[in-house]
């Protein structure tokens, strides 16, 4: 790939990133941040590639740690995001508390 093809891809991806996440409800900021965090774990691909052409002990070690780090980033990131979002889906259960009754005064109960 030529340098300018790569720069073209880069610039377009910048704008896609801006467009795709604007107007996010505050509720989803933490999960979304965690999800994008998992996506940059894609650097583990780099680890897989460099281990392939590693040719001495140090490079084996560097490459293996890079794969492990990247995998932690990916696996942990997606799982933690899933756990967080799982909290929200529980909401579909009907609420157990009775609906509020405006105007009712608790004082007559005591």
């Amino acid at each position, binding site marked *: *790939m030529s340098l300018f093809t790569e720069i073209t891809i880069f610039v377009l991806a*910048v*704008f*896609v*990133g*801006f467009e*795709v*996440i604007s107007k*996010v*409800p*505050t*509720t*989803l*900021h933490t*999960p*979304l*941040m*965690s*999800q*994008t*965090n*998992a*996506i*940059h*774990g894609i*650097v583990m691909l780099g*680890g897989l*590639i460099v*281990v*392939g052409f*590693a040719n001495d002990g*140090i490079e084996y070690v*560097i*490459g*293996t*740690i*890079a*794969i*492990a*780090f*990247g995998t*932690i*980033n*990916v696996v*942990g990131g*997606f*799982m*933690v995001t*899933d756990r*967080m979002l799982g*909290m*929200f*889906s529980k909401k579909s259960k009907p*609420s157990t*508390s009775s*609906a*509020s009754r405006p105007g009712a*005064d608790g004082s007559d*109960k*005591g």
Partner: protein
Amino acid sequence: MPDLLSLPYSVLKPGGDAATALYIVSFSLFIIGIKRGTHPTTAKQGNLIAAVGMAVAVLTTLLLDGIGNWGLIVLGLGIGSAVGVIASVRVQMTEMPQMVALYNGVGGGAVALIAWSEIRHGISLGEEIPLDELIPVLFAGVIGSVSFWGSNIAFAKLQDLIPTRPLAVPGQQVINAVLLIGIVAACVDIALNNSDPSQGIFIAILIAAALLGNLVVLPIGGADMPVVISLLNAFTGLSAAAAGFALDNVALIVAGTLVGSSGTILTMEMATAMNRSVSNVLFAGFGGAPAGGAGGATEERPHTSIGAQDAAIKLAYADSVVIVPGYGLAVAQAQHAIKEVADELEERGVTVNYAIHPVAGRMPGHMNVLLAEADVPYEQLREMEEINPEMSRTDVAVVVGANDVTNPAAKNDPDSPIAGMPIIEVSEAQQVIVIKRSLSPGFAGIDNDLFYEPNTSMLFADAKAAASEIAAEISQL
């Protein structure tokens, strides 16, 4: 497309049609996944879609020609998966921000290590390393190292392993500037000698960048940590994109860049919510001097303190109650106990709402996650702008473990370090009950005038214990 047809039988050519096509599938899934992640009903599905995209990218890479040393690959994947799974299953919801910081850190660390490996590989070939490969490698190494160490410091601060207060070294800005200039100079040196770059200088660059990462994050106060983590997240994304330039890998370029640009937006949104600019966060130590200055005076100021029973009476005879949760609620795991209080009050016909500050907890949206865990109905979670106009019509505002986000100094005292930060205007309510362990300052390290106002009652207790006690008292009234 001969590659695509023979897919199951032979390895893919790096940069070939089949590999590129699969990478395009992969990053399209990332884009769809992020897009779905911005809406509550599709977010969970979006995360799964992105994860599938990642699986496609990893499998494609494993099929590439030139991938070898399978033992090491399996070892790395095994260790990484085990650590990632165990950490994610064990982590408490309250510790989520630290976890994100840590995952972000290892991502940055991976980028720095890949950059180092690339440089070694280039040197061992003994040929001139082309600048369009060398410059991205240098960028990836520097940013990856800064991100790794910066994230670790952010983790340590949030985990209370090191003080959350701003820690400044004398001459901090000068040291940072010197480090930065040194790093740039060393990078230029390597780039100029690209026929035979020195690995020693590259390692020195990594170390200097590590120092810089430490020194930039250490002086930042705990309250600004979400902004910092988000910024480092964006940085790691950009460094991953740089690694993609060096390795000619389109999946890395697109995915890294997406994270870089979306992370930048998130960072700016967070900073705006706190009425701080990103440069302000990075270069102005937060709350150092005022915290020290106000500390002495704190003991002297009069405040009203009450017990659980009185608090229960005030709440039970109110018409409308607004609960303002903060990080203290999360730490005490009090979300379920608070829900009990709300249930008791609703039984008695009291209207209960929750006022959520955009940065309540330690990250935007963190509090919503915690309350959702306790089955608080979504409709009762009200955002700050929405609830503030209703505050003056509220009988009792209950502040549970929140501090800085209710501090009226942000509105009234132009000299306060948090001046201008939007707050939940609890002091507008008829009465305020603050459940807190002590009068100690909050995460920003500054004193809260709210505690000393005439309509404020302090309930000194652990949030969970106090809430359970209040719920029990209300049920007996």
